[in-house]
């Protein structure tokens, strides 16, 4: 171990930042820690998804109100590590190309199961918005007859997901599972989440809303698929994994990937698409976790993920701390004032997101905050938005301070081909 440190230090003398107190931080160390944290986060996501899967199995085998609640609790817990991984999306092509299967949102849930009549029918944008696969053993998809007598991971992944090239045809991932556990939230901007009855999974005559066996089959298939997808991504970040190799293989590009993830998630994605838009439209359908009303947590853990990347630390679901060389170390070497600014802004954002979370947990839920004319709610949400936009400005300064301007964002899929803010 000792000799290992000596070796890295020798390299760091030329490649990295030498500190007055004698310890050195190299870009290589920073990237290794970034990859270690990615691995820990995806592995935690996988472990908590397995717990969810066990709860889903129990619900299907022995449907009851208790077992439905247990599955919901497991889903909420599984979101904690996963949302912290979102900062890896932008900038890492391997994650960007994959995450649509796992966390796609928003969805036209009528594709999957029954919906209220107020939901409407097929739209200009999506002919299959009310397909209802659970009630349809066979159906026609853009001219092709589909046999869905068995609902399998393969059917969801290859045929249904993004059917007809429409992104809101979300058939897989956390939000499909969320819908199957909670059902539609019919409360608008009033308090209350989706209230699916456990009897939607009941056997025989107790079954409500029909096709309980197929609903269970869908839930099981979606959960199995989530697990195999998370296994894939965890493997991407082990020693020798492709995503890790890409990040550590080109140091400047790797650091750019880190900053790209921080900036793109903060600004375009979270502040814009996920938070401000819902407020501007007063539309609870724009809530990120709209069935479960868990949006306050989604936003909070997204923000925490951004802070994790800068500080180079992550607390695992078992309480272990993964930490090491960080962007903060690199920046403080170049410009201590900028490091202080960056850290302060990340903290300000977390305080604002924390306010949303604590208020929601006290009973003023995120959808209530979106209500037309609700000034307290607007102030809470905009506090988060403003913090996220403001920290993005400092992230840009960090890009400049680390001398990465002219290689910034090249080869980053999300920057080269970003969708519009509304897509």
């Amino acid at each position, binding site marked *: 171990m000792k000799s290992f440190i000596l070796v890295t230090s020798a390299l760091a003398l030329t490649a990295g930042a030498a500190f007055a107190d004698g310890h050195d931080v190299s870009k290589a160390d920073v990237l290794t820690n970034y990859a270690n944290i990615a691995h820990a986060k995806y592995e935690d996501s996988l472990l908590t998804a397995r717990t969810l899967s066990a709860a889903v199995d129990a619900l299907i085998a022995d449907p009851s109100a208790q077992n439905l609640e247990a599955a919901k609790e497991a889903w909420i817990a599984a979101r904690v590590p996963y949302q912290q991984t979102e900062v890896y999306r932008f900038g890492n092509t391997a994650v960007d190309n994959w995450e649509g299967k796992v966390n796609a949102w928003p969805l036209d849930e009528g594709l999957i199961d029954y919906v209220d009549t107020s939901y409407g029918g097929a*739209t200009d944008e999506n002919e299959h918005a009310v397909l209802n696969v659970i009630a349809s053993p066979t159906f026609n998809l853009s001219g092709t007859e589909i046999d869905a007598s068995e609902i399998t991971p393969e059917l969801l992944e290859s045929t249904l997901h993004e059917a007809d090239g429409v992104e809101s045809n979300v058939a897989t991932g956390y939000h499909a599972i969320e819908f199957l556990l909670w059902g539609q939230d019919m409360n608008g901007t009033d308090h209350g989440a989706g209230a699916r009855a456990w009897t939607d999974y009941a056997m025989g005559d107790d079954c409500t809303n029909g096709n309980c066996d197929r609903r269970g089959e869908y839930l099981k298939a979606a959960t199995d698929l989530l697990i195999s997808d998370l296994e894939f991504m965890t493997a991407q970040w082990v020693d020798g994994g492709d995503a890790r190799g890409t990040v550590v293989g080109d140091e400047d590009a790797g650091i750019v990937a880190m900053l790209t993830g921080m900036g793109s998630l903060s*600004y*375009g994605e979270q502040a814009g698409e996920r938070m401000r838009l819902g407020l501007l439209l007063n539309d609870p359908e724009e809530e990120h976790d709209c069935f479960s009303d868990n949006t306050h947590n989604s936003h909070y853990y997204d923000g925490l993920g951004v802070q994790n990347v800068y500080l180079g630390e992550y607390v695992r679901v078992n309480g272990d701390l993964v930490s090491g060389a960080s962007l903060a170390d690199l920046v403080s070497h170049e410009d201590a004032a900028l490091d202080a600014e960056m850290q302060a802004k990340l903290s300000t954002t977390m305080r604002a997101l924390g306010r949303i979370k604590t208020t929601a947990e006290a009973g003023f839920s995120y959808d209530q905050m979106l209500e037309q004319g609700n000034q307290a709610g607007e102030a809470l949400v905009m506090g988060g938005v403003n913090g996220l936009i403001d920290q993005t400005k400092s992230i840009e300064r960090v890009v400049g301070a680390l*001398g990465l*301007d002219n290689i910034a964002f090249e080869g980053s899929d999300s920057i080269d081909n*970003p969708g519009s803010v509304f897509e």
Partner: protein
Amino acid sequence: MRHLMKSCLVVLATGFPLMAQADVKTIIEQTVTEQILPGYQGLANHAESLLLATDSHCGVDDPDLRDAWGAMMDAWTRVSHLRFGPSETDARAFALAFWPDPRGKTAKALNQLLTDLDPSVSDPAIFETVSVAARGLNALEFLLYDDAMRAAATPEYRCALIRAIATGLVDTSAAILSDWQGQYGDAMLNPVETGPYRGEGEVYQELYKALATGLEFATLSRLGRPLGTFDRPRPRRAELRRSGRSRHQLIVALEELSELAAILSSDHPEIASRFEVGFAEALDLAADPDDPIFASVSETSGRLKVEILQQSVERLRLIVTDELGPAIGVGVGFNALDGD
């Protein structure tokens, strides 16, 4: 390589490698005084004219009202790439124009108002809290051109709704202009350590990002949305297709971006001339009066022409990111389009 990095850092710390501070200052001044301020002045003026038109011409078929709406739409398009500062405050840009709208929020929000004969329209302070999707120029397009919407509710209510929207447009445009004429314009022209921009480098980067963002929006949304994919073209997703202005709006946007590109590259004649040639080519390709709403994207030959146009705009964006940026020493940074 390592030495290169170091020297690069030094250069960045002092500002611009290939351009003197005085030139940057001139470029900023020129952009603000010749583009941004007149742009927002024009927007405010056209909003006033539109509101005036609603007083005497409130019928949905009225040509004067449609003309006034179209003129303001053009004025908006000329500033639509400036998504920072005053246009972002209180989400004013969203309130002026909400597009793209892939989840159909505009029709949904308008139908709600029309069905309920929602009294919000009679009080501007309350109307301000209505969904942005029902408050902007794109909502007006629905009210003036969508057949179902033109017959919804009563003529009196539709008229009140149109006036409420126009009143909001006047207020919002005036607020943006006033911010620019005051504090924000000053913050850009005279950046200080405590302001939104700490130096001319950050100001230049903002303007540079606006150019890149405008071109990206043209390729991805104005052209990319109707193009869809080869197997699944999406002509109904074209911007302003109801009023037949999809192609026109692209041309207006390109003309404005062409002027911004000329100013921002004025200290690099070689890049400036590449912009000049590139914009001329794109505008030439864009001029196809037979296909105003990109309906041709569904046919092979028509589609090819729109794709070629899209590529020409994409090449312009690449001149920004791969040539202008490195020459000046700025990066693209982040913009509101970075999400998925």
